[in-house]
């Protein structure tokens, strides 16, 4: 760990001022501290923001607002989240371990960095960690890596379960800096690697995530999250699917499908959604729609299984949420 200065911000203004001077925000610390220990992250200044008034979770008729400092465990246990946005509660409960969920914040969850082990090993080449050094994973051990949204520069999978559910439910992220406030849809907030894999978020220097909004919609109540992984707990997804369906009079009126574990960012599946929209739920429909789930996939040496696994994961979760299993 490299030496750094540590301060605690008591107000949002104080935090933003420290952020403007280059301070890195620290909430749960479950990503940043690990990476600092491995010297992947070397901030010179760390600002503890846990005292800021950003912990609130509120649900109204227009939607759900989650404060950026709300803990994963608190959000997952919130009655309104569990009944009106079950995909979010399930994604949270299937994340990490109970101890980590107690510590980790929602804002931090969206800022967490990839589990690519080459990224986390400072002796390996990694364009995300050190632009221009090459991607060790591209021809290395890449069983857990992405098959969608990759580039020659980076094939690291995005690790968040929550972000997949938020993407499916069209969530919006609220940001603040000394220059003012702005809002960015989750879909635009997380960036594909392209030729600049070191840029992972649409976030500006000193900007702080203050809240996440999830708009209310008929489909959020009938939503769910499926996570497929090597062990039954405390492990990242090989594939996952967040599905939300609004079915009325045996017709799918709205459909939201996003997947995780397979892409460099949480991955929305518009072609699958399109196939579902206006159709009558059936076992065959789930399989037909899911057939498009891995379109455009480019597999690597050790993760060719993910394309078929993804189609099956989506089909299974469509059946779970939409019935007619």
């Amino acid at each position: 760990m490299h030496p750094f200065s540590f301060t605690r911000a008591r107000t949002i203004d104080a935090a933003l001022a420290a952020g403007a001077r280059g301070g890195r925000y620290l909430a749960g610390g479950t990503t940043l501290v690990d990476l600092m220990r491995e010297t992947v992250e070397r901030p010179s200044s760390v600002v503890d923001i846990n005292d800021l008034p950003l912990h609130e979770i509120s649900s109204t008729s227009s939607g759900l607002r989650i404060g950026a400092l709300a803990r994963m465990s608190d959000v997952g246990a919130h009655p309104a989240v569990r009944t009106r946005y079950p995909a979010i509660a399930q994604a949270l409960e299937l994340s990490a371990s109970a101890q980590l969920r107690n510590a980790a914040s929602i804002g931090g969850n969206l800022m967490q960095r990839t589990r690519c082990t080459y990224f986390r090993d400072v002796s390996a080449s990694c364009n995300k960690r050190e632009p221009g050094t090459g991607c060790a994973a591209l021809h290395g051990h890449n069983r857990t890596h992405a098959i969608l949204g990759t580039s020659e520069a980076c094939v690291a999978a995005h690790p968040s379960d929550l972000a997949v559910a938020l993407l499916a439910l069209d969530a919006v992220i609220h940001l603040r800096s000394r220059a003012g406030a702005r809002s960015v849809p989750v879909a635009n907030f997380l960036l594909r690697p392209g030729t600049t894999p070191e840029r992972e978020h649409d976030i500006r220097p000193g900007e702080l995530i203050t809240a996440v909004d999830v708009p209310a919609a008929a489909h959020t109540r009938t939503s769910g999250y499926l996570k497929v992984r090597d062990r039954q707990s405390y492990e990242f997804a090989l594939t996952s699917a967040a599905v939300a369906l609004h079915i009325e009079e045996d017709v799918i009126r709205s459909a939201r499908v996003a997947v995780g574990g397979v892409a460099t960012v949480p991955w929305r599946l518009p072609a699958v959604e399109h196939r579902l929209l206006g159709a009558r739920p059936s076992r065959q429909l789930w399989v037909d729609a899911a057939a498009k789930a891995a379109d455009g996939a480019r597999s690597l040496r050790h993760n060719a299984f993910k394309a078929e696994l993804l189609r099956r994961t989506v089909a299974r979760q469509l059946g779970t949420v939409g019935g007619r299993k």
Partner: protein
Amino acid sequence: MTPSAVGAPVSRVDGHAKVTGAATYAAEFEAPRLVHAVMVSSTIGLGRVTGIDTRAARAQQGVLEILSHLNAPELPYRDFRTSIDPPVGERLHVLQDNRVRFFGQPIAVVIAETLETARHAAGLVEVTYAAEQPSTELATSRARPLVPAGEQGNYSRGDVDAALRTAHRVVDRKYRMVRESHNPMEPHATVARWEGDTLTLWDKTQWVQSTAPQIAAVFGLPKSAVRVISPYVGGAFGSALRAWPHVTLAAMAARHVGRPVKLVLTRKQMFSGTGYRAAVDQRIALASDRNGRLTGLVHEARAETSRYEQHQDAVLELARVLYSVPNVRASYRLIPLDVPTPTFARGPGRTPAAFAIESALDELAYELRMDPIELRLRNEPARDESTGRPFSTRRLRECFSVGAQKFGWERRNPRVRSTRDGHWLIGTGVATACYHTLRGAARALARIDADGSATVSSATSDMGPGTYTSMSQVASDGLGVAMSKVRFRLGDSHLPLAPSHGGSQTMASVGSAVQDACDKLREAAIALAVADPQSPLHGADPQQVRVRGGRLFLRSAPHRGETYERLLRRQRRTHLEASGTYTPGEEVDRYSSYAYGAVFAEVAVDESLGLVRVRRLLSAFDAGRIISPKLAHSQAIGGMVGGIGMALLEHSVTDHRDGRLVNAGMADYLVPVNADVPEVDALYLNGEDKTADPIGVKGLGEVTIVGVAPAIANAVHHATGRRVQNLPITLESVL
């Protein structure tokens, strides 16, 4: 009458100390003026160090020294080899030259006032290399295979080729098992302190009496100059049997800076610095007649080792002794690679062998349309067919019968894919477990003090099985004093002789010595009492005197007696003590002694998503006498959970381009978590094996992991119809 302590389900005597943090582990020892050392590890897999720039590291305030091959003292590295060290080759001579032999090799050590400074400075050391292409992959290596000496390398009886030609059925399959790391919870750590030319090491070790002379040999010191202290070990599974290079580095650093040094390995450094279970490729060919009698067995194994040492496991033992087979041919080859030396890992040799043999047997059972248990029972040998010796005890049949009954085996529909539960296919499987009863010479010292308390000691270890507790139980019965009055001491090389705390030999060896010491001490006390005119027992026949609850009394007249305390006070003695011994005798050569088990697994497989989940695991063990049932059970289910890890999850992944381990951490090297471990249970046949050793045990720790992986793989076959011959059984292998 006080019930016997042996056989009672007592809790860990050191449990309170462990859960309250009072138990001191290696990394927790402190000494005045102690400083910290952190290793710098190579980031190439083969080649030479061409330069080490320490300027930035040395500029850090608090850095005392940075040692590398450029400035490290030359060490004598006198010849030293125990049963744990590979029989061929020479241990890594740390910081003695510029060669890099494997990725992650220690190439420098930073010594600083604080751990934080040492860690930071270690990251600032700039190393340049002349890298070469390492060869680290067992399957593709073109290295000339090395042949272990004797029956370890080649074994044959009868004419197996003829048996294969004339067999009713032949099953001929290949099996692959990847490298695993031991991953005990406690990190390896050493605190080294010199006083003149004598060295004290507080170390994580399963064998204080090997570490001490080993480090003495490395530094060219007399054996008596090194003392090793290791009162608690937080798991090891074999990783702490040898003294690895970091122990030498800690001692080297401490001598160099003239202050005590603490060196704690990171989790990542443990993957390349403390051994591992070698990857092994195997072939099994089974020949049988139409009744399921085995007529031939071919077992071929190839395992990885380092270029500088030939670590050997007893991979061929099961082929020689487990079943009745007239014709056997077995061979074991080592493939030298640019990797660190592997070492013994729980159930060494027999665990990979059992995966191959027990998987092939299951397949044969299906070909013969025979119940897999029946097939095994039809091949029960009457004696050890490799030596002709009788078994001291062998109750494998009973293991299968009591296990099958408890598991509900008779309800099984043998047809594959016959049971469903929603998305899940359900299957059950069995396998045999077997592990040699190892015994080694041991001594123990028993002492009773004038306050009536007892202290018994031997230089053994307690890496988790509960040595403190089980030895206290033996001593409690032997001395006739309450458990609460007994203190057992271990983990100090100055204590009486003990063999390595590995190979399941501790209770057989040290336990027998403790029993002998306590018997002698009790008899000495009785002799004192009956000879003492002031004793109520004066003149009594010593054979008629019993001791219970610290009181000596006449069997026929229990009111006639006195306590140890009274006897010693009247005799004006501060204490009584006696030394006990155990030496393996001719029984080791006259009898074939093994612990056995029958392992039953139930799995659920979601074929669509590739998920394999263990639903139930049950083993029935023939391990001789069970001294400490509660801790034995803890030991057993722990070993079985290790077997789940082997079957489904564990894999130290190497990037063969440069020899780097890519998942060297607990986030990426997967072991079972609670959610992966459902109902795990074990049964133990009542009985004892006093032919094997005086205390009547056959060892339990090792045998508990043998047979688990094939039982699970066989259950996966029963569920799905699919044979998985490579471990771990990954999601993609059943998709």
